[in-house]
């Protein structure tokens, strides 16, 4: 029992430290409960499990003794599907992986294929990729903030207000994407060698408008959340991940940056047009829910800055780096393999493709950041109570479509 450390309580000053970790492999038979243990299956049908995550919780009263996440309820065999489709046909399939950040999924896949083929992407297309990726990051973080507030404040309460505000702003970005691609959710905007649509007239001005409006409203969310003592009480010191655990589990993105590690693939191995613009990595200390909230809100500002700066300096030229394809089977990359990782809103989104010289990949593997984030749950949940389970789960920003594939 001494392995289980309560997660709530006061927080010491930030700094290098080893937090007491719960034992995720606790033998439940050896645990002596005060009364009877209650086994609670939270999900896959539950309002706050962000889709279809199932958490099996052993509860002693309301305190969690052991937590086991069960994944796979949204498994659609995407990786197998990629083996069955030609290189030209696969892009829209990965749209549905991380379904709130379709743009970055497409970029990750297309970049892996391009690396395999050795195709050069024109500068204008690289700029466009970066702009839509950053706008998508803002939309994704807005959706995260919305659902996170819902987790905290309930479907009928202050949480819903934040939810509505965030969706109002997210809608503006979806409108921009609709104008650019014709779709609001699953875009099929990127393709091997570039992007499919050029910028419509006046789109750059509208990007500025939207960015200005969102920047103006982010302080409103902060007023409702980060300046609210109840919100601070619910988030500060809750769900703390120590640096060592985060690195062991392969956490990335805002979850890792909230532990104080400036790990950002946009800076460390720049792709698309990130080498032409300064990306300021946002980090926070503490590794708790509040830190993850701060990182994401600050990242929204940063992403809007990147998007608006790039759209001002959008170079001319073609948006496709190769000739149009006559038949799907015409694309036959040389045998070999390629791994490409990009910074999706949730962290390191990797795609590993093996080609055997045929028109279809021999094997495609996707490394989803949400999967790794969810693997932290058995460490984080023991010692907390049910309300904190929901808050911690929400703060990791898992997308089950991506974790289950």
């Amino acid at each position: 029992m001494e392995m289980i450390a309560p997660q709530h309580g006061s927080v010491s000053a930030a700094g290098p430290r080893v937090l007491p970790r719960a034992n995720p492999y606790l033998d439940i038979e050896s645990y002596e409960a005060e009364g009877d243990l209650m086994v609670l299956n939270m999900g896959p049908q539950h309002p706050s499990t962000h889709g279809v995550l199932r958490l099996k919780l052993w509860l002693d009263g309301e305190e969690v003794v052991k937590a086991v996440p069960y994944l796979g309820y949204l498994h659609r065999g995407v990786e197998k599907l990629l083996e069955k489709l030609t290189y030209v046909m696969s892009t829209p399939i990965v749209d549905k992986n991380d379904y709130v950040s379709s743009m970055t999924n497409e970029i990750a896949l297309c970049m892996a294929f391009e690396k395999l083929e050795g195709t050069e992407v024109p500068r204008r297309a690289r700029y466009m990729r970066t702009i839509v990726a950053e706008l998508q990051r803002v939309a994704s973080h807005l959706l995260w903030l919305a659902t996170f507030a819902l987790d905290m404040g309930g479907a009928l309460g202050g949480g819903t207000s934040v939810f509505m505000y965030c969706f109002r702003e997210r809608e503006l970005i979806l409108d921009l994407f609709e104008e650019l691609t014709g779709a609001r959710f699953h875009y099929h905007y990127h393709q091997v060698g570039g992007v499919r649509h050029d910028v419509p007239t006046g789109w750059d001005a509208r990007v500025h408008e939207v960015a200005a409006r969102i920047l103006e409203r982010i302080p409103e969310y902060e007023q409702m959340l980060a300046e609210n003592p109840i919100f601070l009480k619910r988030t500060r010191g809750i769900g703390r991940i120590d640096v060592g655990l985060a690195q062991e589990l392969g956490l990335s993105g805002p979850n890792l940056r909230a532990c104080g590690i400036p790990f950002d693939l946009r800076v460390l191995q720049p792709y698309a047009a990130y080498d032409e613009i300064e990306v300021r990595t946002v980090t926070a200390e503490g590794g708790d829910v509040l830190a993850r909230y701060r990182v994401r809100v600050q990242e929204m500002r940063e992403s809007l800055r990147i998007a608006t700066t790039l759209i001002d300096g959008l170079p001319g030229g073609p948006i496709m780096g190769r000739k149009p394809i006559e038949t799907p089977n015409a694309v036959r990359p040389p045998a070999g393999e390629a791994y490409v990782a990009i910074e999706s809103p949730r962290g390191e989104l990797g795609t590993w493709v093996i080609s055997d010289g045929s028109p279809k990949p021999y094997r495609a593997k996707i490394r989803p950041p949400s999967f790794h984030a969810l693997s932290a749950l058995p460490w984080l949940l023991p010692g907390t109570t049910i309300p904190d389970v929901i808050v911690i789960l929400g703060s990791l920003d898992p997308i089950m479509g991506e974790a289950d594939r």
Partner: protein
Amino acid sequence: MPFPHDPILHALVLGVVLCSALLGVTSYFIWFERKFAGRMQGRVGPKHVGWEGLLQPIADAFKLLLKEDIVPRAADKPLFHLAPLLAVVVALMGVAVVPLASGLVIADLDVGVLFFLAAGAMTVLPTWMAGWASNNKYALIGGMRAVAQSVAYGVPMVFGALVPVIFAGSMNLSEIVAAQAGGHWFLWWPPGPGLLAAGIFLMASLAEGNRIPFDIPEAESELVSGVSTEYTGMKFGMFYLAEYVHSLVGSALFATLFLGGHDGPGPDLLALQVVWFALKTMAVATFILWIRWTFVRLRSDQLMTLCWKWLLPAGLVVLMVAAVWARFVPGRTA
């Protein structure tokens, strides 16, 4: 009194009329809340059923009535069926002692405040019944939380309500209103203890009525729907109704204890008094809505900490200050 010669007839007629009226008011209060929340969130709220959605409550009630009534096989049937009924009855009980105008009160009890607090404390009974009888883990946790919360917050609520009682020198709500006549509302007169007591009372009554930020027995993001998880159709609707009735009656008592009840400027007409009373009640209820649609929820253990470590000592101090004031400061207090 309208029926001065027969108190039983008086209570019966007035009780039926007032309770029916209150249920009607409640359904339109729900409409008002939805409109209010819509405005807060940049939406319009109900719009299409009737003018500005005014027929929406009726449509909702019909929908709930027509829904299939599902009873879990393993439920404790008698308790399961009784709980929603009892929830509404208990919520309505408090209205018996609240004077709408001078003389317009169902039962002019000398221990009105005590009766109201007792009725308020009873709301935990149907909640726990539902939580237990549903035979559902989420409902059980919700019920457990409700009991803990209700037991805890009943105490500061009593302290809050006792301050006006001390100043008025009576537990009779009509006399408490009479003591505040002429704008000397206990909210600001005597300055200090009244305001603090009002704050404590409001927080405690929010917690008793399971309103955000204290709605942890329902906590839909954690416990699906808490105690009402297994309820469908009109039974669910009755829990919903009871929650709103409780909220409205709580606002009415707040208006009576701290805002002078039906006291207000203008000629001493019965109708005008009712209008003043209704306005004050709605003001308090709207304030509660405002809180509800702004705040996020507290955690259950933080809720207990707030009650036992902060509200309870604060209530004791305010009560002592009020008692000293009433004893030594000459003025309008008894």
